[in-house]
């Protein structure tokens, strides 16, 4: 937590450094899996501010603190041409009540196939691939996961509607993900007789002005392991795009039941730097 706040202070103090041409906030925030999106959902947006023929890089750190678990994520990414996004994230889920931890790495690639977030009637549409690898597999194996690695495909459509609600701009996103991950992969992948599922995720964000936004997200989750129920995730968040180099997101999350521990709710905090 201290690291996150220190990072934020450094970013803000560093002032406006090199940044791409895109309009502020149009790179989105960085979600817990390391790619451009909200807090828990990947969007069709490409991270950072690199427009055509421009490069950008980004780094983020995020913490989700719910009743019996703490999830720390951090990672880096690079984007080119407002079209390609490459990201790497490392996650650590502390099992505060049960004891122990579950770690995984996520390598992501996203490619924008059509549309422009702000400028075309067609939403911006991107395809994504995520490769996930557990760094702790004893517990996932014990509860029925078959693999310590897996991959996910997703297609996301995102659009900003100008002057949509009370004169404010509204961002809507819909994502469909093909996955065989349990609890996003932190509890492993696949297993005896368990296949891939298509999951729906969505976000709605109201841009109050150029720098402030409030939003909500829904993430449908598969529920494949017998040992405990896995439930859909929801969040409410406020995002502050301080400048093109720094942003911070604070939210409330409802992760439902996790590993038999019920009603896991709590906070979400994320900071991101983009250059």
């Amino acid at each position, binding site marked *: 937590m201290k690291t996150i706040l220190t990072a934020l202070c450094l970013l803000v103090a560093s002032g406006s450094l090199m940044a791409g*041409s*895109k*309009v502020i906030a149009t790179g989105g925030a960085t979600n817990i899996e390391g790619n451009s999106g909200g807090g828990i959902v990947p969007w069709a947006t490409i991270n950072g501010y690199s*427009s*055509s023929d421009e490069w950008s890089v980004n780094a983020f750190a995020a913490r989700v603190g719910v009743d019996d678990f703490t999830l720390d994520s951090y990672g880096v990414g690079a984007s080119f041409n407002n079209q390609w996004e490459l990201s790497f994230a490392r996650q650590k889920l502390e099992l505060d009540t049960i004891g122990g931890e579950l770690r995984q790495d996520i390598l992501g690639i996203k490619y924008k196939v059509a549309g422009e977030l702000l*400028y075309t009637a067609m939403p911006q549409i991107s395809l994504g691939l995520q490769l996930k690898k557990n760094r702790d597999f004893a517990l996932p194996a014990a509860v029925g996961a078959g693999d310590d690695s897996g991959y996910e495909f997703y297609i996301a459509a995102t659009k900003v509607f100008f*002057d949509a609600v*009370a*004169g404010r701009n509204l961002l809507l996103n819909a994502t469909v993900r093909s996955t065989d991950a349990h609890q996003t992969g932190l509890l492993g992948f696949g297993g005896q007789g368990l296949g891939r599922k298509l999951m729906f995720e969505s976000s709605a964000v109201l841009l109050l002005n*150029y720098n402030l936004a409030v939003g909500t997200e829904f993430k449908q989750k598969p529920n494949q392991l017998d040992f405990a129920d896995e439930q859909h995730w929801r969040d409410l968040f406020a995002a502050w795009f301080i400048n093109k180099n720094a942003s911070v997101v604070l939210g409330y999350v409802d992760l439902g039941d996790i590993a038999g521990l019920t009603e896991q709710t709590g906070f979400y905090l994320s900071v991101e730097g983009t250059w």
Partner: protein
Amino acid sequence: MVKYLLLIATLILTACQQKPEISLYQRLGAETGVEKIVDGVLYGIEHDQSIVQHFADTDIPRFRRLLIEQFCELSGGPCKYTGVSMQESHTGFQITQAHFDALVNHLITAMQQQNVAIEAQNEFLAMLAPMYKDVVYR
């Protein structure tokens, strides 16, 4: 009964008090406002190394007049745009998305400097955004 009449009277008064629709042109600051926004955009272009080269052969006073006409007409003001179509005026200039984004940023800065309300800014941006297809990669 009296209560009812009061309620109805209140409702009618409230309805009548609905402020008349002020045109976007007025909310952008009318003639002076639009001129200042255009001047702000021109200032932004002039100091932007990434796009200024596109205006090397441009007759700036004429460009300024046409841009004022266009912003004025689009926002519902008493003007008539006398220039050629967006597509015609941008074809062959190899304008990229980065150039377009840069111009949008200059427009936003100019509107912010004129303290244009965010609602009016968004309404205006909604009108300009679709021009992307006529301007970029032509």
